[in-house]
């Protein structure tokens, strides 16, 4: 076979993936750009981006997204990390049981989880108010709605962080711990000098995936508060949905999506740079 034939046969085998990729990735992204730069009359225009500057709801959504994002990352990452470390050092009989329990939320559909929280925080018959013997109307309160969403979101995604970091901890070769014990390290020193540096790359990956997952969060807001009360739980993803499917302004929604894409891109790039994770992943020497 000559070179051309090899390439042709290769293309035939790769074709399904290439076609899939073109239809489901490249084309939508092309449309996203196209709509973003289209005015209501259908002409090429920057009007959608100009409108952003004068959009108070966008402004609120960005602030809310920041609040929701920082709260969620802080809770989910630290809780997932701590759970992984504790379970990794726990050697009792219930280890597998605990691990399985921690996996459960990952197996439930997000919409079901959202509905479950809706029931739990229901002001009339929800168990939370009943047990606390209060009438707080969690989801209807300007101050409590967002923390409640953060809490519900954490329940869903702590296991995700846990899973990745736990796998990382399990994959640290035993011999490093043996060398550390010979070197005279205490438990804490071993954690600091062996465990942490060993799982650093995986922690960064977990952090990134967790961040992106959180930013894409939508279901909880949609089911629990529908953005309310007022605009207090409008986060960017929810606002984009509203613009597209309630106001039917697809062009503006596309522009907002593009903004969202840029924000996520900058964020991911910054984390990768700051953590110099490329070094660990062998992307760069």
């Amino acid at each position, binding site marked *: 076979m000559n070179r051309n034939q090899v390439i042709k046969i290769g293309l035939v085998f790769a074709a399904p993936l290439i076609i899939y990729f073109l239809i489901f990735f490249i084309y939508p992204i092309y449309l996203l750009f196209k709509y973003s730069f289209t005015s209501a009359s259908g002409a090429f225009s920057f009007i959608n981006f100009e409108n952003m500057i004068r959009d108070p709801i966008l402004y609120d959504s960005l602030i809310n997204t920041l609040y929701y994002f920082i709260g969620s990352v802080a809770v989910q990452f630290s809780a997932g990390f701590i759970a992984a470390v504790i379970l990794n050092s726990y050697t009792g009989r219930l280890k597998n049981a605990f691990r399985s329990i921690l996996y459960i939320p990952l197996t439930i559909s997000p919409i079901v989880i959202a509905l479950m929280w809706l029931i739990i925080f229901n002001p009339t018959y929800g168990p939370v108010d009943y047990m606390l013997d209060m009438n707080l109307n969690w989801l209807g309160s300007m101050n409590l709605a967002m923390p409640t969403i953060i809490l519900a979101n954490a329940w869903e995604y702590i296991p995700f962080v846990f899973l990745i970091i736990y796998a990382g901890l399990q994959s640290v070769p035993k011999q490093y711990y043996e060398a550390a014990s010979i*070197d*005279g390290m205490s438990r804490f020193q071993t954690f600091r000098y062996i465990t942490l540096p060993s799982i650093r790359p995986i922690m960064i990956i977990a952090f990134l995936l967790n961040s992106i997952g959180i930013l894409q969060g939508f279901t909880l807001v949609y089911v629990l508060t529908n953005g309310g009360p007022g605009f207090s739980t409008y986060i960017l993803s929810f606002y984009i949905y509203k613009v597209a499917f309630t106001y039917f302004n697809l062009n503006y929604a596309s522009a907002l999506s593009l903004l969202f894409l840029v924000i996520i891109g900058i964020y991911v790039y910054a984390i990768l740079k700051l953590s110099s994770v490329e070094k660990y992943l062998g992307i760069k020497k």
Partner: protein
Amino acid sequence: MDNGGSEGIMSEVIVENVTKKFGNFVALDNVNLTIKPKEFFVLLGPSGSGKTTLLRLIAGLEDITEGSIYIGGKKVNDVPPKDRNVAMVFQNYALYPHFNVFDNIALTLKVRGYSKDAIKSRVSEIAKILHIEDILNKKPRELSGGQQQRVALARALVREPSVFLLDEPLSNLDAKLRVEARSFLRSLQKEVGVTTVFVTHDQSEAMALATTIAVLDKGIIKQVGDPYELYTKPKDIFTAGFIGSPAMNMIPGKLVKDGSSWRFVSEDFSVQLINTEFENEYDVILGIRPEHITLVKDDGINAKINNVEPMGAVTYLDIQVGSVELTVQYTGLIKLEAGMEIKVKFVEEKMLFYDRKTEKLLNV
């Protein structure tokens, strides 16, 4: 190196009736050893004989199935590794991949509370000795096998432990560096005076380094002794065959009483023994080292030369005596060729007879 005030020095290691099982597999079978303070003790055995396992038991990295281990007079069965104050070079080095060479060596001092200056001077001192000053800033994965091994050695030697445990620490060095490292290790050990347990499968390395050698085979200690003893009076066939290079010649035969004296009778020849006495007639294996077979003009065993290997200081001859091939070591160079007929004689005082059933040495 400075070793003032170190508590660990002079530690004796006693291994008492130690058995180690992995599941049903017996890796070590009732091992008894006394490793005297300051001794350079070599554990010698083929791959899979249990050397690493024994070392890990002394370090505390494995639980003892039966028996006890004492370090410096203290029973350490339940003492965790970090409190045993042993230093160890792992067979696969186990360097910390995320730290550079300097930190790999320094970490053990840091966690023991040494000052920054003390750490720096000790690390650079040991780095100089092991020729790794130039790579202190590199990560382990950037190093060759030999360099990694030297870093592992440095990490162990930078401390003042009660016992050094070295698991084949020279196996990956090239020939020249290995000889250098041997003499360095030997003199360092003498100077510091730390009890050292050195594992190797290389008998010449064992002979070169050891004050005492323990020969291990399939989890059983075959013999313990100084290199001289082990070379001249190996107590069983395994040790006899394992120690010495080229290996000892082994010739199956019988010991037969012949009037008032004894004869060794093999299929192809027989040898009159003048000064050696036995209790019974035995089926035996005669062990004779290559340097204890001499060439003679007349009155010898007929042999044919298969191969001549002149080494300079000595010449090795492969000779055929009936159905057995023997190696002869001739001191100096000699003009001989394959195919020539010669006569040889065995040095009687050096002939070792092993009972074929028990595989034990019969000479006393």
